[in-house]
């Protein structure tokens, strides 16, 4: 929790001290860019924006990908460029970076709430806590923890599949990474 909070604060802080209107406008435009596999949550809520800055004359967005092999990276990069173009940043650069490494701890509270609403259980644990952490994930529909892990891998790289013994439904979970 502390970590998530810290990340969020850092994000806000960056916005504030980045200061310039250009950067604020860029953050605002980024709110409209979503992950095509989970269209309810934007790239900021997802914790994928590592930095926005002005380098010389050019606006630069650093994107830290959820999974290195995520096939949506190109689409997201493209959408970010489009969003930047829409606010007049025609030369904006989007870099894919691994530092900070994306972790599911970077998803904001608002992002977690939206994932749950979407029917996707938010990451159940801190990413380092290992194996036991995805055995008993709270069901996003009825909140029961009487659930079982059905498959470590799901329809996208970032999801596992679970079954709720209380409401008898299968559900997907965003894996802690």
């Amino acid at each position, binding site marked *: 929790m502390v970590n998530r909070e810290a990340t969020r604060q850092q994000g806000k802080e960056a916005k504030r001290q980045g200061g310039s209107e250009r950067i604020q406008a860029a953050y605002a435009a980024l709110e409209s860019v979503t992950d095509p596999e989970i269209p309810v949550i934007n790239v900021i809520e997802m914790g994928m924006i590592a930095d926005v800055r002005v380098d010389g004359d050019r606006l630069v967005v650093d994107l830290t990908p959820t*999974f*290195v*092999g*995520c*096939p949506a990276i190109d689409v997201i990069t493209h959408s970010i460029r489009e969003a930047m173009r829409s606010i007049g940043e025609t030369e904006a650069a989007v870099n894919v970076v*691994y*530092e900070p*490494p*994306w*972790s599911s701890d970077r998803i904001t509270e608002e992002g977690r709430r939206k994932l749950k609403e979407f029917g996707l259980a938010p990451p159940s644990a801190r*990413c380092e806590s*290992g*194996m036991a952490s995805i055995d008993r994930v709270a069901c996003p529909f009825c909140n029961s923890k009487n659930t079982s892990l*059905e*498959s*470590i*891998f*799901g*329809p996208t*790289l970032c999801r596992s*599949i679970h079954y709720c013994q209380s409401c008898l439904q299968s559900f997907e979970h965003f*894996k802690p*990474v």
Partner: protein
Amino acid sequence: MSLNYENLAALTPRLREAVVNLLYRMADDELLIGHRDSEWTGHGPILEADIAVSSMAQDEMGHAQAYYQMLHELGEADPDTLAFGRKPREYKCAALVCLPKGDWAFTIVRQYLYDAAEMIRLTAFAAGSLRPLAQLATKLRGEEKYHMMHGRGWVLRLGDSTPESHERMQAALTQLYPYAMGLFEPTEYDEHLAQAGICPREDELQREWESAVAPVLTEAGLKVPEHLEPVYGGRVGRHPAALKELLDSMQLVYKIDPGAKW
């Protein structure tokens, strides 16, 4: 350990050559095992297994791409050309990842031995002195954790389930272990990479790997055969015939239309 090489440009020419060689080994292993895993897509024994092996294929190919990208930043060709545009002799993958996919036991044993080796290497890279590689390794480790959970689960389940599953698993292990040892084929660059704090020596990594997999194999009721000769050659471009067949199929589209846009 303190970070000595903040970026790729900080490498000396000799070290740069060593890192290029190391990255080719990593990238080619990932690409090839990813391709072998993808051959299960639509053919897995059960739906969840099919999805899992396909997801792991996607992960490994993504990892290969990240290593190729780093190679590109070191002055090598672009990732697509590196993945699809080379001749078999130019690949630096171990024979383990070239072998045809075999039965499910073979696939599970290969993937488990491979992932365990990769995890050890990534952990070493993450603590190593080359910052861009340490960053990437930190990221990849988080993903590989799920491969390890998956592999360990299947090894334990099949190792002492039915006599047939045990027999197939033991046969796969006996066949594959010498190939897995070949992942640690010594190269002329080992000493230099170790001294620079970028990657420990191969024999050191191998010892660590052996002590990581032994308890799981034992728990699964499987025996590591004794007096094994590792299968070497991959790191210097000597590969089993299976690699050429695989590349012929994998590179087919690229060769017909090298600049194709998807």
